[in-house]
């Protein structure tokens, strides 16, 4: 398995396939029957670039906006502001059908992602039929090819989802995503609904497919161990913002944002004797309707300083990646003394 392309290497970088520029999604939510609607910024100014062949791991707690971002990438939601470029073409200008050929999803729960009333063959061939690729006789052949690729026996063609195990269903979902040979696959927690022994099979399959088919993944997960294993770069999301983005090789040794550290500390590896770490995050996940002032992470941050509650940290980009934290901003860091 090839290691990730190092971003800092002098070689020409592969072309970007997905670019997000200041993408924002605001929902208007009602908190009570009589109170007026209030804006909830699920995704708040996300700028990210995914290059061909990369695996972008998107991590964060539930409610941080990672699933909303994925929905926008898939065209299931439209951004309130900002722009998503696919192969350099703005998504809202592109043809919906053309985009869906390039980007396909794999969902978390293989029990809800397959229509129980359809046969596996009809589920996997749906993209072919919608896009009118080939003719009915070639569909079966294409489906059988993709079944071979994802490691399912061809005879599942006539079966129904309820006849398959969770791992087999997830393979069907992968086959459906890949049958149009997309460039980008958005994997939303692809293994968290599966048993441990099946999880590793699916992860292995995803890694193999990436190499064989030259795929680009956006891997959404709350499990940093999984992300660390297969992603080439990691974006950490907190309350709709990307607070840190860095190559996976830096994640363990050189990640900077205190939130990233807390997430890393919370990973429970099967190593006895280490005890349960205390991530010191406090117990309250802030209300996304009225996020904390300044750095939105400051109420839970162990390293919070006086300026953190007042000044919104600037995005900083250097050779290690991107981080939004006063600790690394030479202009605002020095206020520490005042704290």
């Amino acid at each position, binding site marked *: 398995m090839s290691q990730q392309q190092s971003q800092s290497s002098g070689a020409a970088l592969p072309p970007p396939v997905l670019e997000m520029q200041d993408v924002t999604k605001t929902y208007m939510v009602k908190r009570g029957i009589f109170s007026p609607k209030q804006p909830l910024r699920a995704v708040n100014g996300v700028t990210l670039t995914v290059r061909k062949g990369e695996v972008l791991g998107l991590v964060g707690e539930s409610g941080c906006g990672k699933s909303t971002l994925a*929905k926008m990438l*898939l*065209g*299931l939601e439209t951004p309130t502001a900002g722009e998503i470029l696919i192969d350099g073409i703005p998504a809202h200008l592109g043809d*919906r*059908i053309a*985009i*869906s*050929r390039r*980007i*396909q*999803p794999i*969902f*978390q*729960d293989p*029990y*809800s*992602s*397959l*229509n*129980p*009333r*359809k046969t596996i063959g009809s*589920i996997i061939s*749906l*993209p072919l039929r*919608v*896009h009118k690729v080939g003719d009915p006789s070639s569909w079966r052949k294409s489906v059988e090819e993709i079944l071979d690729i994802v490691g*399912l*026996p061809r*005879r*599942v063609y006539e*079966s*129904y989802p*309820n*006849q*398959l*195990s*969770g791992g087999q269903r997830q393979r069907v*979902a992968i086959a*459906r995503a890949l049958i*149009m040979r997309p460039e980008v696959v958005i994997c939303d927690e692809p293994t968290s609904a599966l048993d441990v022994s099946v999880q590793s099979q699916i992860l292995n399959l995803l890694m193999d497919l990436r190499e064989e088919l030259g795929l680009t993944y956006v891997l959404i997960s709350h499990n940093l161990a999984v992300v660390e294993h297969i992603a080439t770069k990691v974006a950490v999301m907190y309350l709709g913002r990307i607070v840190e983005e860095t190559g996976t090789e830096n994640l363990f040794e050189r990640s900077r944002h205190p939130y990233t550290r807390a997430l890393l500390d919370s990973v429970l590896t099967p190593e006895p004797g280490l005890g349960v770490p205390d991530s010191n995050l406090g117990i309250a996940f802030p209300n996304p309707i009225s996020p904390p002032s300044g750095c939105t992470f400051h109420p839970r941050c162990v390293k919070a300083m006086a300026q953190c509650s007042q000044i919104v940290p600037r995005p900083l980009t250097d050779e290690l990646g991107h981080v939004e934290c006063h600790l690394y901003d030479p202009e605002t860091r020095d206020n520490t003394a005042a704290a």
Partner: protein
Amino acid sequence: MTIAIDDKGARPGLPSANQITGPTPGQQLRKRIFGHYGLLIGAGILGLIFLMALSAPFLAPHDPYAQSLLARVKPPVWLGGSWENMLGTDVLGRDYLSRLMYGAQISLLIGFAAAFISGVIGTAMGVAAGYFGGKVDLVVTFLITVRLSMPVVLVALAVVALVGGSLEVVIAVLGLLLWDRYAVVMRSATMQIRQMDYVASARAVGCSTSRILLTEIMPNIVNNLIVVATLEMAHAILLEAALSFLGMGVQPPLPSWGLMVAEGKDYILFEPWLITIPGVALFMMVLAINLMGDGIRDVTAPENRN
């Protein structure tokens, strides 16, 4: 049922990696249907009534409209009548069995037609509200509320009184009034299915909305539709009987069961069988339909997830 496939290296008695276990949905359904007595009994009774209605032109012993003033109110055979008129004759001397058989046609016709019309209206509204949500949902919910605040029998009576009663009018009035339950049930069923990832996946593939509604949503809510349809059919049949009983439904001399009950009511003390026979027939039909509806709901309950 267990189909072993690609059994290379499998050891006997235990499943291998590529085995498909469990029955297909069709097999599962068949097994559940034949294990559900209520459904079977209901289907059996309804089937008999259906046969009776269809075969009325060939099997009915007499013309249901032929009056015979000499043979009025002849009792059925077990009350001392003759085999000539097995269920006796009514106050105009018409053969009761023949009228009952032709009456089944009318009841079933009204049941099916009204359930179908209201089904089309209610399903369209419910699915639209459930799938699109937002303003569409607000409008549909409002319409449902309006409809629910109208007393069906009174509105039907008023309409019939205005335009005059006939079979067509009864069907139209009931069809246009009984869609509320369809709309409510279809709306919530659609909302539930809409949340499923396979719908999101179909959208991500680029399916058109109509395709998603037809191939992803409908097959998964059609069982709810059938259940409501049976209940509404029974409802429509009973309402027709009520309207006809009040003289505002199907008009004589058509042999509607409700009309037969109405015609027999004056004799309830002297010849109680006149009202009992169509009453029991009506009761059996509605019971059978309801048994079937309950049965269908039971056997099509969402597949057990492991």
